[in-house]
């Protein structure tokens, strides 16, 4: 041991919290002024929001009459009309099916976030069964449930259905497109590139219109299916083209030595793709992959244009009649909160994944 204490290891000098606060917020008179001004503004806004939403608000349907005198939010409209927002035109007495279907789908989405289930077979099984149960509950026709065709689906249930179906079709397709565009055969690579760039250059609206309205003239009857399915297929192709480019970006970042190592160990093409290429590509481009899911969840509202009552359109219907017409703000805030819950959990989950997958990486 060296006798000179100066050279020994020690903790970095600590700065007390109060002086750090002073340095960053109250260093000069101007700083003090700005800090106080911001604090006052912030508190005023927060108070106004809390007062509107909670303190002065009216909650139950029966109290609707009180809304006219109150300065707060009139949540009576949600109490009275939430079923339309959640279920759209789905028959009233069958709402339990739609509720159950949504819960099943949310559980499926949540479960597929568990790393313990991350193998192709387990995820495949989970999604096929989750999606199958969802469809069976919504569509009916088995176990004595009446048939309810997709034109009458609506609200949150329809939004979740479209999002889940687009993801389910789009993800495998995006992997195929990304692999195709990286093919060593120039013809294949060019064709896939052309396909991706073609669909990326079209607005989503055009694709949905084409799927809903034009394809029935072109496709033979047995291939048309319901309008909803055509729209979902169109949406999934659009989604897959963007997601394919995200995944491809992740693949480009992998050093060629990874594939060579796989080759020299005797792994075949699919083994190298599924065990070496894809896991690393997904990790590399996780932020943009999650981003694409977030965008897609919100873009589902565009299907209103081709005549579907997803959650936003159902919201307009919810405040569209009689005494509720004045309370559109409350309805939109409510729908905003639902979107926020979904999208925020998606992004938080993405952040969690990034953290988890960073283990062992510089």
């Amino acid at each position, binding site marked *: 041991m060296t006798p000179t204490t100066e050279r020994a290891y020690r903790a970095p000098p600590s700065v007390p919290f109060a002086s750090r606060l002073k340095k960053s917020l109250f260093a000069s008179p101007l700083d003090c002024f700005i800090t106080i001004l911001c604090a006052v503004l912030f508190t005023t806004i927060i108070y106004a929001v809390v007062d509107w939403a909670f303190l002065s608000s009216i909650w139950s349907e029966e109290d609707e009459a009180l809304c006219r005198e109150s300065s707060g939010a009139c949540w009576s409209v949600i109490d009275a009309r939430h079923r339309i927002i959640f279920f759209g035109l789905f028959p009233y007495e069958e709402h339990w099916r739609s509720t159950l279907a949504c819960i099943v789908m949310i559980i499926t989405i949540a479960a597929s976030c568990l790393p313990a289930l991350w193998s192709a077979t387990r995820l495949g099984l989970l999604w096929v069964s989750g999606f199958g149960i969802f469809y069976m509950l919504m569509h009916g026709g088995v176990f004595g449930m009446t048939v309810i065709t997709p034109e009458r689906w609506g609200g949150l249930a329809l939004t979740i259905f479209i999002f889940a179906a687009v993801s389910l079709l789009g993800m495998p397709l995006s992997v195929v497109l990304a692999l195709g565009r990286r093919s060593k055969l120039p013809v294949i690579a060019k064709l896939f590139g052309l396909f991706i760039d073609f669909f990326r250059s079209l607005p989503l609206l055009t694709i949905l219109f084409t799927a809903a309205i034009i394809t029935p003239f072109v496709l033979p009857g047995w291939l048309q299916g319901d309008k909803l399915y055509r729209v979902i297929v169109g949406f999934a192709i659009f989604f897959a083209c963007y997601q394919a480019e995200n995944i491809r970006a992740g693949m480009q970042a992998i*050093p060629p030595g990874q594939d*060579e190592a796989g*080759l*020299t160990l005797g792994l075949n093409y699919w083994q190298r793709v599924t065990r070496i290429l894809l896991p690393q590509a997904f990790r590399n481009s996780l932020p943009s992959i999650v981003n694409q899911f977030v965008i897609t969840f919100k873009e589902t509202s565009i299907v209103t244009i081709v005549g579907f009552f997803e959650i936003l359109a159902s919201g307009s219907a919810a405040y569209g009649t009689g005494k509720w017409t004045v309370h559109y703000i409350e309805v939109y805030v409510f729908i905003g909160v639902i979107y926020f819950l979904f999208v925020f959990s998606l992004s938080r989950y993405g952040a969690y994944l990034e953290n988890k*997958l960073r283990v062992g990486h510089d």
Partner: protein
Amino acid sequence: MTDNSGAQTRAVSMTDVNKWFGDFHVLRHINLTIDDGEKVVVCGPSGSGKSTLIRCICKLEDHQEGIINVLGTELNEDVANIDEIRREVGMVFQQFNLFPHMTVLENCTLAQTLVRKKSRKEAEEIAMEFLHKVRIPEQSTKYPGELSGGQQQRVAIARSLCMNPKIMLFDEPTSALDPEMISEVLDVMVSLAEEGMTMICVTHEMGFARRVADRVIFMDEGEIVEQNDPHSFFDNPENERSKLFLSQILQH
């Protein structure tokens, strides 16, 4: 398949092999035979084609002319042949190329279970045996990014050995390492050589070459310029280009 009677003693034979990258003639008229159990060190200035030479042996690169025969099988476009050869030839890279998303143990068991169809338990036993051999069993649950360069390269060697290869190729295995980590990797390679493994090493570690190699091959501009036993090569190089190269790498 060729018959096994005479071919068994030949690990690799290359006859008049030529290769181009675009217009660049990277391998010129290579004639080379390597016997079973022989240890060969390949050296030469950068860009001389030495890495390309060994990459052709495990078919990471295609050659355009000539015949390459590995373990009695000719390398051609026949996919089954190539897969068979790749399973028998291990390769260690300059940049280690461990799979970063798998633990050390998973790196070592992946190909065993997928290619050799071993059970997971058996594969793990074999992996641990080779991790012991490269003196790193305690790191088996870590990810490559948590290890030092020397440790990673030793794992990469163990990963190759798990496939029970008949030939090991080393492509500058110590060039990306910090100086204090070079010897731990060379020690592993020396003990491998002492066990009789057929080895072809591209390296500039002259101490290692003197100690282990049966033969040193000097390449320049895509040609094999000189080959000799290590002592003759280092002490009395015959060719002017070899002399120049040795004077450049040994002057400090």
